[in-house]
């Protein structure tokens, strides 16, 4: 374990930025945060988390897959893939770190998504423990410890210092690079920080929410639950929840006709959209209720069924604060079966 004074954090950023592109959460307007590429003057935000999740770094909202160039009646296929550069994302919260595991299981199992894999390989994740979680946080529900964030490097921020612990060879290599700016230390301060965090976690309003009852094999139990009507009744069908979600991984592949050819790209899609997975015969989820149900069944039942019980939600709380009508996974879980342990 190494540490440094928070006063020198910008020097640390500078050192990292010399070796790779560095992205840190920076203040955006209205008290929210956004990942920005570090440069002189970009400061680490005090906000709990970014509005957009860091999944963008591995699975961007839009990326070109390939291109076709047309000349008269001739078509030429162009591979647009280019070498991904090394990059570091700094200050990732425990929930978001966990989300990469969820995405990995989708994109890194056969057939491997080479676009995703390339970025994953080049990216170093530096996580940060959460000292001040929000009321919308419920990562504990999914077994995530905000006091013990994973990632290539874990960090803890105290009043004046920041502590680093490498978890992987990638992390160790990066720590090595900033060794000159940090000093070796023991874990006492971090332990007390962890304790503090654990205490705060016990005060959270959603601390008692559990996944009991959900998981693989529960399709029949929940699929025709009468509460779906009511829950989905006010859903506007926008894609906010899916687009701010760190684990939503659905995309659409589309062609853009440039006039001189075609760009084949993929972009995020949302199961909340009426056009989602539309096929030649039409759409297999006909109403908003079915689309709504799909999203939550996927997170709470289908995904764990295929992934050894891992839920496709990390309790980051983004959808809780961003849904225009404040409908969210917590309300769904409470209504259709997630039990509150007493």
């Amino acid at each position, binding site marked *: 374990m190494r540490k440094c004074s928070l006063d020198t954090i910008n020097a640390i950023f500078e050192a990292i930025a010399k070796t790779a592109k560095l992205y840190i959460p920076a203040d955006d307007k*209205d008290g929210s945060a*956004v990942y920005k590429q570090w440069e002189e003057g970009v400061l680490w935000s005090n906000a709990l988390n970014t509005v957009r999740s860091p999944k963008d770094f591995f699975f961007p909202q839009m990326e070109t897959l390939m291109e076709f160039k047309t000349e008269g009646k001739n078509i030429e296929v162009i591979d647009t893939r280019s070498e991904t550069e090394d990059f570091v994302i700094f200050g990732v919260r425990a929930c978001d770190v966990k989300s990469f595991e969820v995405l990995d299981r989708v994109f890194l199992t056969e057939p491997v998504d080479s676009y995703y894999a390339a970025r994953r390989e080049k990216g170093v994740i530096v996580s940060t423990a959460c000292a*001040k979680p929000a009321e919308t946080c419920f990562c504990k529900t999914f077994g995530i410890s905000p006091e013990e964030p994973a990632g290539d490097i874990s960090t803890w921020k105290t009043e004046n210092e920041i502590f680093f612990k490498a978890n992987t060879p990638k992390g160790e290599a990066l720590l090595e690079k900033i060794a000159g700016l940090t000093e070796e230390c023991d874990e006492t301060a971090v332990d007390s920080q962890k304790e503090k965090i654990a205490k705060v976690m016990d*005060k959270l309003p959603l601390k008692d929410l559990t996944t009991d009852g959900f998981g693989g094999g529960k399709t029949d139990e929940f699929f025709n639950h009468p509460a779906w009507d009511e829950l989905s009744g006010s859903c506007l069908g*926008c894609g*906010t929840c899916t687009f701010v979600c760190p684990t939503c991984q659905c995309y659409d592949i589309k062609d*853009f006709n440039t006039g001189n050819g075609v760009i084949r790209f993929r972009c995020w899609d949302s199961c909340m959209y009426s056009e989602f997975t539309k096929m030649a015969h039409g759409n297999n989820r006909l109403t908003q209720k079915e689309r709504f149900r799909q999203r939550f069944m996927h997170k709470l039942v289908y995904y764990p069924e295929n992934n050894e019980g891992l839920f496709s939600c990390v309790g980051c709380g983004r959808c809780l604060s961003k849904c*225009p009508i404040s*409908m969210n996974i917590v309300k769904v879980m409470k209504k259709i079966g997630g039990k509150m342990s007493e």
Partner: protein
Amino acid sequence: MQTITKQQLLDKADSLLANGTVTAVLGWSKGEFGYDVTPKMFTTKEDLEQNFVWNDFCGVNFSKYLVSKTDRFEGKILVFLKPCDTYSFNQLLTEHRFDREKVYAVGIPCEGMVDVSKLKAATGDGISEIKEDGDNLLVTTIYEDEPATVPCRDVLLERCINCKSKKHVAYDELLGDEGEIIDSARFDEVAQIEAMTPDERFAFWQNELSRCIRCNACRDACPACTCEKCVFDNPNSGVENKAPANSFEEKMFHIIRAYHVAGRCTDCGECSRVCPQNIPLHLLNRKFIKDINEFYGEYQAGAEVGSRAPLVDYTTDDLEPGEVFDRRDMDA
């Protein structure tokens, strides 16, 4: 700080349900943290008593729900409408988007709704309880022993700070006192942007619109956007897309969205309220409203049912598109 109480609304809903005037009530149901209310169709007294809520966070404009809900329910629906919601209500009626006969509209006064992000900026994260105390909110967080006192007027939604009307333009029944149309300063921000240089304006919007994640919340919450098939979802429209591929598409989406509601937008402010990226989308709509007012005379969409929107109307001596700028240059 609302002048009308939850109990008054509950009593009204109960009695109308009981006497069979309505079979369902479109109201707000309570959430987890006091501020996260969700629209809901209530059909029983019990449900209403357990879950119905009316507080400073009931910002959702119900008018749009009537388009889909009136088809789904037998009998009449009771809908509670704040003054600004009634404009959308009328506009939808003008466009024949729902059957007036299937709705029982109860106008309710509104003292302005709270912007949760502003509230959180004031109190910090970790809100566990919110209580009303006169014109203030008492906000308890898990980090402080004492609740913080936040004056409501400091954390109002932008649209409420610049409220255009406390008067209801449509209802079957009005609870509480009727208000007045307000001569608000809602166009000031538009005027400020107009006063910028083109480069500054471009930079301003480039910065704002580049944050768009194309979640469509602005469109899907907008009571003017009730198209059976939105052009952005229609592969044959030529503008369909799902993601803002580049700065052109960001701009195109927002220009077309604003243009499509120009003359129909009642300035209810839902677009800006729901934007997860806090993009001031209402400014685009207000620009159209301001222009239309200046070019063609004052027009408030939704002020009355059946009015003819300025863009589907004309006079023979309208100003020329080029004169738009001459005029502005003269004013400058």
